[in-house]
Structure formats: structure tokens, C-alpha cells
């Protein structure tokens, strides 16, 4: 057992750090640090800078712009990127649909979609969940009927993140009503400009607009947009979900939050001393740091283990990383509210653009909205209850 990285790995880490700090605009990284929403342009700008260096899609096959990195390098890349508050490359593009197209798409689809997906020339969104099908995703009902050389899609998706920004949506649709529920699902790519698609925003409790309902009313899609085989979509979806591995713990992002909380708690005063000198506060923070360090070590163990693993196979350890990582992220938003104190109250989001001075310290604005918004991290991507079900099944085998 040796926790030391090789000189090459250390050099790689430094190179990544330098790159992220010098190349990604400070204004964008500040927004990430403050928890402010990014514009579509921010995301695209950042992703193009990464892509120009071949760093937007390191997890893809080398042939399609991936990097032949060791798991340690992948980890360092993610960790440095998160700590530098660099927006992660658009997840729908890079960790979700890209690898699916690379693995299961035909040559024409790869040629057309992969370069555009890597460069964010296409902004993707994910159309999986439906009103009646959340945790029980396989019960989805959005229907795609094969008619001639087209599929005609009718139905509704919900919770579609950033559909308002998206050029294309990748969907799970039902193509066989008679089959067992997992066996009648197909994976299809749909241009958001196709007639019959309506996007309706859903405002979340923090006042933000990141999720939507997407309605399909006789939407005609060329059948060349089907990925792989008809009725095999569930397998591709499982592959997609199994792809998100260690990044899910968001250790680097949490480290950046701890650093930020410490910085702010050194400025914020309680009585005659900085908040960071308040024993109750700093013990609470230190306790989360212990959990975070343990999670980082666990993540590294998973990373080391990945070297021996087959690609595309889900590692149950990723559920553990998600469970712990989500709770730590949520706890840190609570600590940020503790720092802000009574100034969490003013709701300042709709003052946007009115140029009024911020009420209270300028870091107060996002504290409560971030706490509210981060309740999502234990809900989406397979809720924490579902993650526990997965692990329980694996360890009990009942």
C-alpha cells in the first residue's frame, strides 16, 4: 500500500491545474464558485476551450477524441477541474449520449454526432423520466410508432434539465407495447426543432429554471436516428447510467466548497471574533471534512480498482460514492447558510438586471437557494433510496 503518486502523475496534476486556472475564464469560474447559474454561452465557451485541447471528452474512445488516461489521471483531471470551479463539460453530451453513440451508434451517426457533441455544437438534453416513471423508469410510456422510414412520437417527458438550451434530446421511447417492459424500449435521438415538440419550464423551489416538461405531439423522427437496435434501448440506458462512475462523488467540488466556506467564515464575524474561530462552527466543518477525506480515499480505492475492471460494467461502489457524495454536498450548503446567518433571508434572484446593490454580504445571495436546490442531488440520477436498493441487492443477494 502506497498512497504516493508517481512523478508523472504529479506532473499531470500540475499541468491540469495550470490549464484550468489559466484557460477557463475567471468570470465563469467565479459563477461556479458562487453557485450562480451559468448561461448557455458560459457552458459552451468552457467546453470548447476544453475540447480544443482534447480535454472535453477524455472518457471517450481515443479514436473519437478520448484520452488514453489511467484511472488516476481521470481522477486528477476531475478533481482539479472541480476544485478550480471549472464547469464540467455538459454531462448529457460527454458522460451520457456521447459514449452511447460511440459504443452503439452506426458509422454515420458517429461521424455526424460525435465531433459536434464533443465541441458542444450540439447541446443535448436527456429525455428519460416521465410523470409516471421516475424511479421505475422502465414503465415509461412515451410511444414511438415505426411508420415507413419514420418514428412518430407521442407522449411526455419531465424533469428534462436544460431542455430550454438543448438542440437535441436523447429519449427512451416505447416501441413495443406487447413485450416485457424493459424489452419494448428504444433509444432515439430527436432534433428539438422538430414540429410537435413543446417545452414548458418548471420552476424549482430555489426560483431557478433548470428543469422542464417536454411534450411530444405526433413528432416525426427519421428512423436513421434510432441508436442500435429497436427494443434494445434499455441495455443502452443501463450502459449510459453505468458510465458515470467516480465523478459522481463530486469530491473536488466539495473541496472547493470547504475552501470557500473557510474563506467566508474568516471574514464573517460573530461578536468580536471571526466565525471560523467559533468552536461549534469549526468543529461542524471539520466533521464534514473528515467525511470528505474518507470519501476521497474511497474514491481513490475505486479508481485503483477500475484498472482491473471491464469497461461499461457498473461498479456497485459507485452507489456508495453517490450516497455519501450527495449528502456531503448537501451538508456543505447548510454550512454556507450558517456562515451567512440572518442574511440568508433576502430573496435577491429576481433583482437580476436591476443593478441594485446586494443586500448584506455579496456571498449571501446564493446561500439559501443553493441549499434548496441541492436537495436534488439525492433525488436525481437514481435516488438515494434506489442506490441503497442496488447495494442491498448486491450484498444480500436476496
Amino acid at each position, binding site marked *: 500500500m502506497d498512497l504516493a503518486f508517481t512523478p508523472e502523475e504529479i506532473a499531470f496534476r500540475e499541468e491540469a491545474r495550470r490549464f484550468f486556472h489559466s484557460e477557463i475564464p475567471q468570470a465563469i469560474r467565479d459563477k461556479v464558485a458562487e453557485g450562480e447559474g451559468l448561461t448557455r454561452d458560459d457552458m459552451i465557451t468552457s467546453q470548447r476551450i476544453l475540447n480544443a485541447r482534447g480535454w472535453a471528452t477524455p472518457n471517450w474512445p481515443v479514436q473519437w477524441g478520448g484520452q488514453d488516461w489511467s484511472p488516476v489521471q481521470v481522477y486528477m483531471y476531475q478533481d482539479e477541474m472541480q476544485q478550480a470551479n471549472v464547469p464540467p463539460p455538459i454531462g448529457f453530451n460527454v458522460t451520457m449520449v456521447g459514449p452511447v453513440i460511440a459504443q452503439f451508434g452506426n458509422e454515420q451517426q458517429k461521424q455526424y454526432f460525435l465531433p459536434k457533441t464533443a465541441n458542444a455544437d450540439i447541446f443535448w438534453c436527456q429525455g428519460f*423520466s416521465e410523470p*409516471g*416513471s*421516475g*424511479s*421505475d423508469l422502465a*414503465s415509461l410510456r412515451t410511444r414511438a410508432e415505426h411508420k415507413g422510414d419514420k418514428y412518430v412520437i407521442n407522449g411526455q417527458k*419531465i*424533469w428534462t434539465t436544460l431542455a430550454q438550451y438543448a438542440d437535441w434530446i436523447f429519449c427512451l421511447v416505447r416501441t413495443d407495447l406487447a413485450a416485457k417492459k424493459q424489452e419494448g424500449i428504444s433509444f432515439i435521438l430527436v432534433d428539438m426543432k422538430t414540429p410537435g415538440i413543446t417545452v414548458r419550464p*418548471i*420552476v*424549482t*423551489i430555489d*426560483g431557478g429554471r433548470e*428543469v422542464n416538461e417536454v411534450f411530444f405531439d405526433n413528432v416525426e423522427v427519421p428512423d436513421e436516428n434510432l441508436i442500435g437496435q429497436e427494443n434494445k434501448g434499455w441495455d443502452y440506458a443501463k450502459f449510459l447510467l453505468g458510465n458515470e462512475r467516480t465523478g459522481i462523488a463530486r469530491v473536488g467540488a466539495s473541496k472547493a466548497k470547504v475552501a470557500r466556506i473557510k474563506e467566508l467564515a474568516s471574514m464573517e*464575524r*460573530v*461578536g*468580536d471574533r471571526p466565525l471560523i474561530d467559533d468552536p*461549534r*462552527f469549526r468543529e*461542524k466543518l471539520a466533521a464534514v471534512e473528515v467525511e470528505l477525506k474518507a470519501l476521497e480515499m474511497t474514491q481513490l480505492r475505486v479508481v485503483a480498482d477500475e484498472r482491473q475492471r471491464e469497461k461499461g460494467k457498473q461498479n456497485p461502489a459507485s452507489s456508495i460514492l453517490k450516497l455519501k457524495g450527495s449528502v456531503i454536498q*448537501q451538508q456543505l450548503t*447548510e454550512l454556507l*447558510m*450558517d456562515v451567512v*446567518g*440572518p*442574511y*440568508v*433571508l*433576502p*430573496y*435577491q434572484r*429576481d*433583482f437580476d438586471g436591476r443593478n*441594485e446593490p446586494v*443586500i*448584506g454580504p455579496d456571498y449571501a445571495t446564493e446561500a*439559501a*437557494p443553493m*441549499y*434548496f436546490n441541492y*436537495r*436534488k442531488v*439525492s*433525488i*436525481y440520477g437514481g*435516488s*438515494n*433510496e434506489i442506490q*441503497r436498493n442496488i447495494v442491498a441487492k448486491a450484498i444480500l443477494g436476496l
Partner: protein
Amino acid sequence: MDFDLTDEQRLLKDSVDRLIADQYQFEQRKKYIAEPDGWSQAVWQQYAEIGLLGLPFAEAHGGFGGGPVETMIVMEAFGRGLVLEPYFATVILGGGLLRRAGTPTQQQALLPQVAQGKLKLAFAHVERQSRYDLADVATTARQDGAVWVLDGAKSVVLHGDCADRLLVTARVSGDRRDRMGIGLFMVDPAAAGVSRRGYPTQDGLRAAEVALSDVRVPQDDTLDDSGGALPAIEHVVDEAIAALCAEAVGAMQEMHETTLEYLKTRQQFGRPIGQFQVLQHRSVDMLVALEQARSMAMFAAVTAAEQNATERRRAIAAAKVQIGRSGRHIGQEAIQLHGGIGMTMEYKVGHHFKRMTMIDKLFGDADAHLETLARLGGLFGKAQAA
């Protein structure tokens, strides 16, 4: 010992519960938020008509002589409905300060107006640096002949934007954090030197930032310039915390009931999700947290009028700790067990969750009160002197 309500209290409860059921459905509340004040003038008048606005005041002042238990009944119902009107700011805080620190003349003149719904008040106390320390007052009051002249800035003044009068703490002597030297003054927001900036709070209520620059307060509007106003302010704040505890219990109960309903109706994997045992247990843990909170809200209510400040502080601090913790647990679980729908503005649970979160931040969060309680020696037994 008796946990039952008296006949009068029961009548009060019935009428408030009915009012909230009739006037505070989620859709109605949305309309009130959109009104110019961010709350409903019409509903405010109804509070006046059924006697809620004068509830804690003496009969001589146009009130009903209600105590903390009556306030608890009202606030719990308000917590269920997520009431937007400035009841807490006007009746509990403002009315409380007039009752405990006002002169008989001021009480005589103002409390009946409050009871009739004609006068709204706000407590302008928090400052940029003060956080939860009630003694931390940097705003100054200096004497100029018969008037006091105030300078300073007040923050997060609850419903300060619509108040007809602001009750302002200012330092007449001593250093910024001294317990002695705090005075209490009534300021007309229209007076020269006062500026206000109103805004919504995270929970859909309203507050204001107030700046005071050479504001002249006539003798008649001085509540207490002896420099010894803090104990009365602390008592009012303790009563206010007891009221918030009751409001929080109402919000928690609503979140719990809504969650139970959802567990029974939401279908996944071909059955109501409430059939998953893990979710059953989670709903039970929510109930445990709710009942613990309810008990402590009652403890706070029966102790709020206590004159022994240390005894009262202990009880109120303990209650605020419990409320903060139970509220956080129930709020987070309510959202989690709803899944995506719990995260949306269109669904009421998220609004209760937000109100609950803000209640924790008013007049000291759970951590701040835990520290107070620990400093006062906890609740049971006694530490041995070394």
C-alpha cells in the same frame, strides 16, 4: 397537569382553523403574494374581525387578554397555511414591545389601532454585524434637547416595508455589545432621514433594509431611553420564538400529512410507494420528529410568560433547538420522499420547507440556541463545582 384546551381556546382554534381552511388554500396564497403588498389586505381585515390582531393585548387596549397558549393556537394554524400577512411582525413583535416596553400613553394610543387592523408595526433591530446577538447594537441615539436623534442601519426588518411605525433599537450609551445602554424608539418611516428598501424573503414573505440618518424622534415616541430596554426586548423575543415554534409545528405537520398522502397515492413499480418499508419507516421517523417538536413548542408556550429570565431562556432555547432540528429533518425528508415534484414551486411542500428553513434563521438558529442552553447549564441536574 392538563394538556386540554379550555372551551374558549377551542373556539379560537376552530375559528382560526376554519379561516385558514377557507382563505389559505395553496392557490389562494399564490394570489395574495401577487398583490401589491405581497399579502392580502382583505384577509388582514378578517383577522381583525375575529379578534386575532388584538389577541394578546389587555381588554383595556382593545384586546382579548390572550396568553402564549392562545398565540400558539393561532400561529400553528398560520404555519399550516403559510400565512403571508405581517401578523408576527405587527402583533407578536411590535405589539409585544409596546406591551412590555411602551408607556401607558403609548399603549393606550396604539394597541387599539393595532387590534383594529389600522396600524402595522415592525421591529427594526438586526444590524449588519449583529447576527443573533440581541445586545449587539451599533445604531446610535443622541439627545438634542427634548428629542433623540438616530443614526444607523437596520437589516432584514420583517415586514418593515409595509409597517406604519418602526420600533428601532439604538444605543443611548455604552459600547456596541454592552447589555446596558440600549434604547427603544418608535420611528415613522415617512420621517425625514428614514429610507427603506423592501424585498421578498426566501419564504415568500417580506422584509426591508432601513437606513436612519439624523432621524429625530419626538419625546412621545420614545419607548425607553433609560438604556435598560434589553430585558424587555429579550422577553418579547422569547415570546416571539415561542410563537415561531408553534408556526413551525404547523408547517411540519402539513409537510408530514402531505407526505403521507403522497406515499399512499404515488405509484411506482406497480404499487403505492408507501408500500416500500423503508419509506414507511422514514414517515414514522418524521412523525417522531414532529411530536418532539410539538411537545417543545408547548413547553415554550407555557414558559414564555415566565418572569425569571434564566428559566425562560433555557426553555425557549431548548425549544428552538428542537424546532430547528425537527424542522430540518422533516423538511428534507418531505422533499426526498416526494422525489422531483417536491422540488417545484408548483407544489406546496417546498414552500413549507423554505418557511421552516427561514424560521430556523430567525432570532438564532439551532446551533446558537444550543450554545445558549449549554452556557446556562442545560435543563436537568447540576454540574459539580470543581
